[in-house]
């Protein structure tokens, strides 16, 4: 019995690390840049496919790929925000109108990125094996790649949190999240900060994708399920709260693992149930103000 509980908990925490990472990226994009980025999962997919392509074509170690995936996805995100969302923001009559139209534009981007990926890489399921040797955690056996991916996800998440909390740019980002107008009056370049935030959110998604490709098989249509997970985690943790997303990721990972143990086919249903109940009972989330 104890072994089963341990297995469920460890597997939930291993999943939670990735969830936390992708939710932090999503939270940054919504909390600061005010884009409910439905195409978030597509950046995850891009990260996963770039890592996979570099591993299978050039034999580059996936951990090394992180250093390439990060900047590439960041630049893509940066450019998309500059061309699409900055224009939308300036032409929208109100912040609420911007939230609606940017969400719909993100839906369009989702279809574009996904289908460009299908044109490049085909629609098939792909994968590679890396660090598949097993590791024993307190009597529960897991593949090494899951442990490595989770530790990296937690590491990246913490590093990012410290960047937000301690650095000057991090301070500017937090200021822009609280009150863009006042932050602008205090000399923060709002336009640049919002674009940076969108790029950074994409970067975190790209990292998440790289790590996911180490553990699971990938395909161009994989993104959306992660977008849904990111939305649920972010609502769970409180929209815009980075620590909330981090904690929320682990909570959802645990819940998913428990439901999957009991009835695997119901894990998605359980996610949606949590999500809907949460929105109805406490839309602010656990860490929301």
């Amino acid at each position, binding site marked *: 019995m104890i072994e089963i509980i341990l297995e469920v908990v460890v597997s939930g925490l291993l999943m939670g690390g990735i969830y936390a990472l992708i939710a932090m990226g999503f939270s940054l994009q919504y909390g600061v840049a005010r884009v409910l980025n439905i195409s978030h999962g597509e950046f995850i997919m891009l990260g996963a496919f770039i890592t996979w392509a570099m591993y299978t074509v050039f034999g580059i170690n996936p951990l090394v790929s992180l250093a390439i995936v990060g900047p590439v996805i960041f630049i893509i995100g940066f450019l998309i925000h500059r061309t699409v969302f900055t224009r939308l923001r300036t032409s929208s009559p109100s912040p609420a109108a911007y939230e*609606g139209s940017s969400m719909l534009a993100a839906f*369009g981007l989702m*279809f574009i990125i996904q289908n460009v990926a299908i044109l490049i890489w085909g629609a098939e399921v792909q994968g590679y094996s890396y660090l598949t040797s097993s590791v024993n955690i307190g009597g529960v056996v897991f593949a090494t790649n899951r442990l490595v991916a989770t530790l990296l996800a937690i590491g990246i998440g913490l590093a990012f949190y410290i960047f937000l909390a301690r650095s000057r740019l991090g301070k500017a980002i937090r200021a822009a999240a609280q009150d863009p107008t006042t932050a602008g009056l205090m000399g923060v370049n709002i336009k640049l900060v919002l674009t940076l935030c969108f790029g950074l959110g994409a970067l975190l998604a790209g990292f998440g994708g790289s790590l996911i490709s180490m553990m699971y098989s990938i395909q161009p249509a994989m993104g959306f399920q992660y977008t849904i997970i990111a939305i649920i985690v972010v609502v769970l943790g409180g929209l815009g709260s980075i620590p909330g997303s981090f904690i929320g990721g682990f909570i959802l990972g645990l819940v998913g693992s428990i439901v999957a143990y009991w009835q695997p086919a119901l894990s998605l249903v359980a996610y949606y*149930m949590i999500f*809907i109940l949460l929105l109805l009972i406490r839309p602010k989330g656990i860490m929301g103000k």
Partner: protein
Amino acid sequence: MNSLRVTPKSFLLPGISLLILVLLAASPLYVPPYTIVLLTTIFMFVILTVSWVLFSGPTGYISLAPAAFFGVGIYITAMLGKDLPLLVVVGIGGLASFVLALLIGFLTLRLRGIYFAILTFGLVELIRHFLLFWETNITGTRGRIVVLVENEHVFWIMLGIFVLLMLTTYFLRRSKFGLALQSIGENEEAAAHRGINVTMVKVITFAISAFFMGAAGAIMATKWTYIDPYIAFNPLFSFLPVLMAIFGGMGQIYGPLVGSVVFAYLDEVLTTKFPYYYMLIFGVVLVVSILYMPDGLVGLIQRLWRRRWRGQHAST
């Protein structure tokens, strides 16, 4: 959103619309069967779009639930289609969606803005995954076979639903109820303070719009021989109406109408001619129309028309 208010003049003249309607209703007599099928599909999208705008246009709440109501209609036909007459099934499909929308509305319409959009979207997914789980694990049969109906009958019923919808839209907007709806979209608190039962108005409108989506789904199901949760609750049926409304322009009552007719026709052409690029083009059109056509196709045409008109005057 003052521009949404409808005056009798801005609506198509009753005489012309009646003539077009008669021509359309008689079309099975003089056009090939393929065109009838195409027209049926176009009217399905028109119904989804116009009924979406019926609620989301004046209130500004972005509902991503059309696929849920449409899917409920489809499932009603799949379950009852063999035993009951077609018109009754379509009515039940609409009513089932109406009731579902009442429930969803009372639960969710106190959420504002983006929360409402994500919630309605999550709801479609919840229904889909739950049905899928139910079919594979409890009943052990995935998908259902739907009885086929003659093309002309499907077309006439679809046309009937469309006429009913247009009349509802027209009279609803002219009524006190429509004004209440509009004031909610402009300022919900102010509307509540003026003594409007905000929740009731929103929920009832939401349910009326769901009725038409459900009815459209119920009749459209007969065009598909086989349905399963993936087909019936395809989230694309939530996005397409939104896209078609934006594409056409929500400023005028005929914007969504024009947008859905043009877009549904394009949709048909694109899926048959460029099946691999269809979704890509769909995404590009969505982004471009949000970015460059804030007033939609109708707004764009009006702007071009005015510019040309003014240009001619300048040269004389």
